[in-house]
């Protein structure tokens, strides 16, 4: 129930399903936000909040794609590696050619690798977990191959625009993040494709018998996820004007964790982009809060882990009701 629909109110006077899970995540978010605002006077400043957004943009962009996949019942464990490939490809192309071309090719390389995942899962029929686990190793290898294992640095300043310059007070990367959220959210809530994602994840056989092309829907989800990882990788490269092949290790798990904290069901068929983004922000705020309060980062990991367990446990409990 993401949109308020006036005609819906008329048709459903008394009864309206309160989605406990979307409600719960908002409560957690606000509680954390309030707690951090009270605990540190540096938290509630535009500069810090924009910083949190900027810091979380890469994982957030990936989480948008990953969420579409999980809703459709597939997991992509290769997004961290795609992120690295996109970053190094962008830098390499920027070095030999034009920086804008580097940015475009870097982003698109993510989509191409996503297509490869789609092929593995649909044509070779490997379980998405295993297929993308294997492809992530290959992709990471490609990143090493492209760079020879070294850091690639771009000197052309135009390359750094996306990751460092600001527009209306926010970095370009934050704007890109916002666009990705809007586009993926629109896809999921307003298009036939989005509806098919839910159907395919909720009951693939019913979807197939309803005339939905299950493989096409899942394959496209991989391409979109790859594209998101590509965009995120390019943003990261642009931020430091450099890239190395071991970028984004473990990023896939952060993205999946954020999505699940946001209430995406690992069983497929349920979830939303905006809730996944709230999940990303919660995890990012925890990190930010620990920094501001000067607490050892070791505890940060413990808290993040516990939070994920709590979120998944709550998901199970609510499902059983």
């Amino acid at each position, binding site marked *: *129930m993401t949109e308020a*629909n006036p*005609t*819906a109110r008329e*048709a*459903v006077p008394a*009864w*309206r*399903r309160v989605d406990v899970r979307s409600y719960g995540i908002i409560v957690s978010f606000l509680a954390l936000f309030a707690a951090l605002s009270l605990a540190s006077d540096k938290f509630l400043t535009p500069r810090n909040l924009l910083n949190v957004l900027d810091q979380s943009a890469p994982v957030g962009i990936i989480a948008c794609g990953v969420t579409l996949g999980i809703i459709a019942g597939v997991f992509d464990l290769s997004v961290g590696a795609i992120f690295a490939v996109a970053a190094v490809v962008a830098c390499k192309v920027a070095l030999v050619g034009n920086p804008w071309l580097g940015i475009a090719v870097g982003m698109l390389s993510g989509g191409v690798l996503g297509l490869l995942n789609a092929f593995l899962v649909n044509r070779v029929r490997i379980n998405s977990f295993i297929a993308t686990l294997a492809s992530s190793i290959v992709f990471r290898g490609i990143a090493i191959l492209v760079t020879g294992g070294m850091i690639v640095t771009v000197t052309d300043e135009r390359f750094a625009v996306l990751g460092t310059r600001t527009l209306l007070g926010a970095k370009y990367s934050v704007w890109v993040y916002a666009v990705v959220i809007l586009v993926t959210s629109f896809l999921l809530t*307003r*298009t*036939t*494709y989005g*509806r*098919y994602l*839910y*159907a395919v994840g*909720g*009951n693939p*056989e*019913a*979807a*197939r*018998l*309803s*005339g*939905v*092309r299950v493989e096409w829907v899942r394959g496209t989800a991989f391409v979109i996820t790859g594209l998101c990882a590509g965009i995120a990788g390019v943003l990261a490269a642009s931020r430091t004007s450099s890239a190395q092949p071991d970028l984004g290790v473990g990023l896939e798990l952060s993205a999946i964790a954020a999505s699940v904290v946001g209430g995406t*069901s690992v069983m497929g*068929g*349920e979830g939303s982009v905006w809730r996944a983004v709230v999940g990303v922000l919660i995890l990012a705020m925890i990190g930010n809060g620990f920094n501001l309060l000067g607490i050892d980062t070791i505890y940060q990991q413990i808290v993040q882990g516990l939070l994920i367990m709590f979120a998944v446990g709550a998901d199970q409990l609510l499902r059983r009701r």
Partner: protein
Amino acid sequence: MGRLGDPEPTVGGEGAAGPGRPLVEARELSKRFGGVQAVDRVSVAVRPGQVLGLVGENGAGKSTLAKMIGGVHAPDGGELLVDGAPVRFRGPRDALAHGIATIAQELALVPARGVAENVFLGVEQARGGLVDPAAIRARFDRLNAATGFGLDPEARVGRLRVAEQQKVEILRAMARNARLILMDEPTASLTADETDRLLRIIRRLAAGGTAVVLVSHFLDEVLSVADEVAIMRDGRLVRTAPAAAETEQSLVLGMIGRSLEREAPLRPPDPAGNPVVLEATGLTRRGAIHDVSLAIRAGEVLGLAGLVGSGRTEIARAIFGADPIERGEVRIDGRPVRVRTPREASDAGIAMLPESRKEQGLVMTRSVRENTTLAALGALARGGVVDQRRERAAAEREVRRLGVRAASVEAPVQSLSGGNQQKVLFGKWLLRQPRVLIADEPTRGVDVGAKRQIHELLAQLAAGGMAILLISSEIEEVLGLSHRILVLRGGRVVAELAGEGATKEQVMQAAFQSVRDGAERRAG
């Protein structure tokens, strides 16, 4: 592949059917599932070395009764006695501890492991957690020799054919010293030859003092191997009689009962003279259906009757493109159409309500609206973007037309009753205005009121010119609605009856008719 050396059939061997204390006795056992009384105060008894046949229509309660004896279901009422003492099983394990083993329709083996390992799984008699392969092997050889199965102990179970896997299950039961083996439709997936062998094994087990309860649709098999036959109908025991006193005819009569009170038939107007809409010729899918042809006119209801596993659903799925077929052609309005996928079939104007609405029909976690419009979403969207107002209006129109009772179209479909879920499934396909509607078990698990409404809906759709293929395990349903009825057995059409005037007995005789020739009984 070992042959049984001189099996020496000993039907009702020494003391088998004679007097003496029953090994297992069911007294007035009852079981209810939701609103359905699956088993109603049934009493049966089995003595050591006796083979008891259990027969009845689909849904008569035979499997449920067997599952209560096997500890799978706990009875709601009545008593189960083993060796004269009352027992309460909390699971199949408890039953096994009392010497009762079940060989289910779906075999429960570990496919990736070897035969011997499966046979002794859980009863390895390990010492300090260490399994002694030599001891296992010796025990296996003894069992293998006793049965004459000749199974390779190292063979991977997953690679064996179903018949061989059943032998593994039987050995497994024997390794646990089973005194009663329950077999639920053990021959359903066997060839005639394999069936014969299994029947010999059953006789041999009985001769050795093991009791067997055999649930089967194949009356000839039951009559040839059982000492006594218990007939069930609508959850009740009709009678138990010595097999020698029964014939196939008498069993069928017992299964369907004499009084046939029917609801007023709803058969839509006679479609004779209307053009043929759907024509399927020579549909063949290995192991499922063989050379099936059918044609349905506009406004005609064609019923498919037959036992579970006779190929009814497989025909529906072949026409709808849900399963690949090896041969066959589908025509709509005389023009050949490609139906390799459900998408192609629905684009050609065919709709199918699948057998299981939960597994195949609905996305249970999504709303009534999303489920209703899923198959017609393309028409409710522009450039891939769903027109939400039109979508909602379409869903609400169907919900109103079909009388779906839901809090709103936004309610998750899993919150609805079975009958209302089924109506949502109808709505989903009616939105597409199909030329042909295939309804596979459209009233399964719905209450009486909803059932009547669904019947009326089907009649109304046919009267409006839709061609309907109706599949149901409930023969009354097929009889009441169909203009013509095709009876299937073993993946083939074995009889065609006019709906008007056809009797349940005719259908059942055709469906159960024993065929000694296995090649004809089972396709492929």
